[in-house]
């Protein structure tokens, strides 16, 4: 083993993850189709895309639980095909589906997971207190996992992924299926980790989540990267400052869109509404009304990543 591969040397790599021409095929289906990206230490990197875009497959390849078909993939300077267990020893993984042991207690779930990393019992017992505090589950220490709410299970899964103090924490759709309050609690916890310098890799199909948590993100669709940048940068590049949403009824939207297209930079017709992209939303809405058009509802808002995705793919993120 070369000196650069010593365990303690992993901290010198600035590129935590480096992927070149990464491909994953299942028989005839190409799930990931030649993507390139680099993630540096302390960065919070997001993969944004609809279901089936290839986000989870990319995550599984990074977590060394799925072998790539082509390309190169290095985590902490090591090839994922040859150093899977070594790399995984340095990762924290929060899967899309919780895979906690429901027959064990909250504490026991953390404990056994720590043992899988070969951590000493005394370390684990101390760490459990800290993680329960972090996940706000101190009261549930001896409760069976079965009795926890969805948000609590998710927090426990995240706490569990931190037991080895990972260099990289991977979160596959961390808040899907949670209520708004539970999502905000989770975002707060993840933000603290980010402050601590943990590298975060997050997949999501929620724009607000990506905007809250990611320094940089890629928009992914059909196994390919459509665009890459910071949330604000992507919005500036692919959308206008503001958006006017007007509804005229599903049978009239297309006809009205043609009449107002000249009032903005771009117009998109969705089944239930028209989106008019413009730098001055209020002014554009006034001019729509001045033309004698009476929308059933209207809304002026700031552009979001949803608009970026729509622009790039012609489709909505959440079906």
């Amino acid at each position, binding site marked *: 083993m070369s000196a650069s591969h010593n365990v303690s040397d992993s901290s010198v790599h600035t590129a935590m993850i480096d992927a070149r021409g990464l491909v994953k095929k299942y028989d005839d289906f190409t799930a990931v189709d030649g993507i390139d990206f680099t993630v540096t230490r302390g960065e919070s990197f997001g993969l944004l895309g609809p279901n089936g875009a290839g986000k989870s497959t990319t995550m599984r390849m990074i977590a060394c639980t799925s072998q790539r078909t082509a390309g190169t993939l290095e985590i902490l300077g090591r090839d994922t095909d040859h150093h899977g*267990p070594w790399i995984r020893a340095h990762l924290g993984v929060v899967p899309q589906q919780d895979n906690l042991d429901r027959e*064990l207690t909250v504490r026991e779930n953390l404990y056994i997971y720590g043992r*899988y990393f*070969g*951590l000493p019992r005394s370390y684990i*017992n101390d760490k459990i207190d800290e993680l329960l505090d972090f996940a706000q589950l101190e009261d549930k220490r001896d409760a069976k996992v079965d009795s926890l709410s969805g948000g609590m299970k998710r927090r426990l899964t995240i706490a569990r992924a931190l037991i080895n*103090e*990972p260099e990289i924490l991977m979160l596959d759709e961390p808040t899907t299926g949670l209520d708004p309050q539970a999502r905000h609690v989770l975002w707060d916890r993840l933000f603290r980790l980010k402050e601590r*310098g943990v590298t975060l890799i997050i997949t999501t199909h929620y724009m607000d989540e990506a905007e809250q948590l990611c320094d940089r993100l890629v928009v992914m669709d059909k196994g390919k990267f459509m665009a890459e940048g910071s949330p604000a940068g992507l919005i500036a590049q692919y959308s206008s400052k503001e958006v006017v949403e007007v509804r005229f009824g599903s049978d009239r939207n297309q006809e009205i869109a043609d009449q107002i297209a000249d009032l903005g930079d771009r117009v998109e017709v969705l089944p239930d509404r028209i989106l008019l992209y413009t730098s001055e939303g209020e002014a554009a809405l006034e001019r729509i009304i001045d033309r004698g058009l009476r929308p059933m509802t209207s809304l002026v808002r700031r552009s979001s990543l949803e608009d970026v995705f729509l622009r790039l793919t012609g489709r909505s993120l959440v079906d």
Partner: protein
Amino acid sequence: MATVDTGATPATRAWQGASRLVQPARIARSGAWYVAEYRLRNLSKWWGAIVAFGLGNPVLYLASIGLGVGALVNRNGPNALPDGVAYLTFLAPALLATAAIQGTQDEVTFPLMHGLKWERVFYAMQSTAITPTQIAQGVMITAVIRSVFTAGIYWLVLWVVGGFTSANAILAMPAAIVAGVSFACLMLALTVRFIDSQMFLSSIGRFVLTPMFMFSGTFFPLESMPLAVRWLGWISPLWHATDLGRVLTYGKAVPGWLVLTHIAYLLLLGAVTFAIGSRMLTKKMTG
């Protein structure tokens, strides 16, 4: 390290990092034992049922088959069975082998369903440095421990009721354990292969365990069956274990080559099916 709550928030406490905390080489060495530690912890939640089943099963079998069928067989005089032994003596090694096989079968099939399908806990293990091969080894270590426990209780009950007549009877316990683990390896491969089939769990009972129980010389000598169905016993690990057990518990006269065949068959079946099952598990979990 003392367990003292410093009151520090997680954000301010020193973060050592996985590079300092985790020793991948240690996990490569001991991963299978960590998996076994988890399985034993999970099993400990069911210890009452395991003890009750371990004790209840032999008592029920002895009371029904041993007393009921035994009374009929013994009524035909000392030569009712080919070896001229009492029915209990004939039955005891078969029940011991059956118990060991059933115990390990449970200890492989259900954990695999739980780990790969029901709660997917094996995928949680796999997201640490543990490998699928270590998961298979860990499940098997636990199966051995469970088998020692089940066969141990069974052996004691049989010994108390006078089921053994040979001084070698103690060796029937390790023989039953080897049979149990060998069968568990076969079940590992079968479970991984058919785990996505809705019919798998019920089919195992109907098409594997029950026929094996019926055609392995458990309740009557295999030699009394027509040749056309006797092969079912020859391929059955239970027959090999039972016949070997009879040699040990009452000194059944069996040629030396056959004793070696019994041992070799059980060891080979276990080694080959474990290698296949473990490879299939890796393929399934890393596809």
